[in-house]
């Protein structure tokens, strides 16, 4: 099972490879990928360097081109595919059907992976991508339970990749317009959720308030830790009851599922976080490498170590982790 790590820049990419990643995924410096943040991602020169570094060490590079191409702007997405192929990417991660069609027609020999943003949650949808674009991998959205992943892995004609650790999207990826409803910008259209330019912090008599495009997302008492106001992780009111109506600030952590995922034949576990620092990438890659190696050497006696969980919890939103939808009780 491949360990696939995120990299938002060259130092993070080197860190990921040096700390045990089998493959790294990156994006370009524009809105063609779902982590389009200021100061992040790779221009043409850096792309080539990234490719060299990864390939010289016998590892793999995946390039995410996973937003949806704009009407009248499709060339930008096609150009991104051309560039990724030119620097020798091992795989293209794509969500848009038009972009997939372009890549499959022009570069049939370059692996195409169905991005999580394409929201592929069942066998017929997988067949759609296989029949039309001859894809070699599908990345599953974080909405399926372990039982559902197992069932799908049994019947899928295409190898599957799952999210293993990182920020938790609670909505089916690629099918969430909450961010554009509140700000005009969404992951699908601009490659960002709850964009930082709409965030405002304010000390008030009632506490520290976080707002997104003026909408109150959360209000913190002095003893509470304030988190980034991702709009689905705020506290809202439903019939006079104030609570995290959609989700708490928490991260996905599936270390304990390693044995199950291996047995199901999952080909790759993906770490979320291209927007995170090289220090984050180092800690997560190292911990997951250790856990995967431990399992491989002695599968019967595999047990998650407390220290691994602590390390990962400290890197998580609200310092807490969950199995998310993999665990049905979460749903």
């Amino acid at each position, binding site marked *: 099972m491949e360990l696939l790590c995120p990299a938002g820049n060259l130092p993070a990419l080197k860190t990921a490879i040096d700390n045990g990643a089998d493959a790294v995924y990156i994006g370009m410096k524009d809105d063609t990928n779902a982590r389009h943040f200021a100061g992040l991602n790779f221009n043409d020169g850096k792309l080539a360097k990234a490719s060299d570094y990864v390939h010289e060490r016998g590892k793999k590079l995946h390039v995410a081109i996973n937003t949806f*191409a704009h009407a009248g702007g499709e060339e930008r997405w096609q150009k991104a595919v051309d560039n990724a192929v030119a620097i020798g990417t091992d795989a293209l991660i794509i969500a848009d059907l038009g972009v997939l069609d372009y890549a499959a027609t022009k570069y049939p020999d370059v692996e195409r992976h169905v991005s999580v943003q394409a929201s592929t949650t069942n066998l017929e949808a997988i067949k759609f991508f296989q029949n039309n674009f001859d894809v070699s991998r599908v990345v599953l959205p974080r909405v399926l339970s372990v039982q559902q992943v197992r069932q799908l892995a049994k019947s899928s004609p295409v190898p599957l990749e799952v999210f293993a650790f990182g920020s938790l999207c609670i909505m*089916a990826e690629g099918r969430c317009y909450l961010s554009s409803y509140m700000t005009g910008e969404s992951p699908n259209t601009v490659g960002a959720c709850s964009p930082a330019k709409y965030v405002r912090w304010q000390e008030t008599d009632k506490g520290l308030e976080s707002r997104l495009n003026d909408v109150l997302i959360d209000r913190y008492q002095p003893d509470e830790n304030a988190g980034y106001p991702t709009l689905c992780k705020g506290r809202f009111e439903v019939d006079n009851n104030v609570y995290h109506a959609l989700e708490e600030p928490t991260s996905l952590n599936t270390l304990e599922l390693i044995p199950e995922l291996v047995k199901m034949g999952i080909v790759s576990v993906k770490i979320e976080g291209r927007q995170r620092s090289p220090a984050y990438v180092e800690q997560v890659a190292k911990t997951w490498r250790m856990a995967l190696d431990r399992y491989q050497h002695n599968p019967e006696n595999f047990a998650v170590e407390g220290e691994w969980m602590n390390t990962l919890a400290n890197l998580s939103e609200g310092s807490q982790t969950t199995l998310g939808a993999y665990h049905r009780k979460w749903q």
Partner: protein
Amino acid sequence: MKFSLGPSMFFWPKQEVTDFYQEAKTSSADIIYLGETVCSKRRELRAKDWLGLAQDVAQDTNKQVVVSTMTLLESPAEIQVLKRLCDNGEFLVEANDLSAVQIMHDLKMPFVAGPAINCYNLSTLKVLIKQGMTRWLMPVELSGDWLKTILEQATDAGIRDQFECEVFSWGYLPLAYSARCFTARSEDKAKDDCEYCCIKYPQGRRMNSREGERVFVLNGIQTMSGYQYNLINEMPALDAMGVDIARISADSTEAFTQLDNFRAQLVQPTNKVLDGVVECNGFWHKIAGMSVA
């Protein structure tokens, strides 16, 4: 331009659904969509009941009846029901997931690409047309300019006559789908033990900010807009750019009044002032969806 009644996205008791579609028969809608699009656990009406209802409406009216299908399908059992609906042999099907597109293609039957199919550009439109799509609803987050560009490109590419274009024009917008049931969560229940509690909320549950702003509506695993989308003032613009159908969502029986209002607007446009506390039209104008332009 034609007007459609979109599928009701809420969970209503069977009798209420039946009554609603009795009234829909006499409404001014040209097209009626019906079927469960949100949650497969809602079984007041099963597949055969929806198809029976479709037959009933089609028999008594000259309206086109379209069977709408689920958006988030996670189990083989759900796919079985989907196949049954797709292979109904009589009615056009609205696909809201690529699984339905695949099934309709296998059946060699035409289909409507619903608003949950991510078609953002001409190339994607071409892929879907090749699969058998004959009608397209763009994702609700896209703007009028975005749509205009695609329709012009389709004309230039010589494919504009191969599909009808429908626009979600009134009602609570379907914004997101999750593994988690937010209605069950709001009652402190787990999804597997939800007791079908969303039936208690025929208009969903309001989720407000702590300042009382209507942010979203919780509808089971679906999150909807807190405000009702309203493109009534944009009807002449839709018409001018060649939109074939305006969709009025079946939020409640108010939809029937809105069908009349929207149709009247085409004949005699008057500027309606939207109430920014309960209505919005931002997506169409490429600003925050919850805003009023």
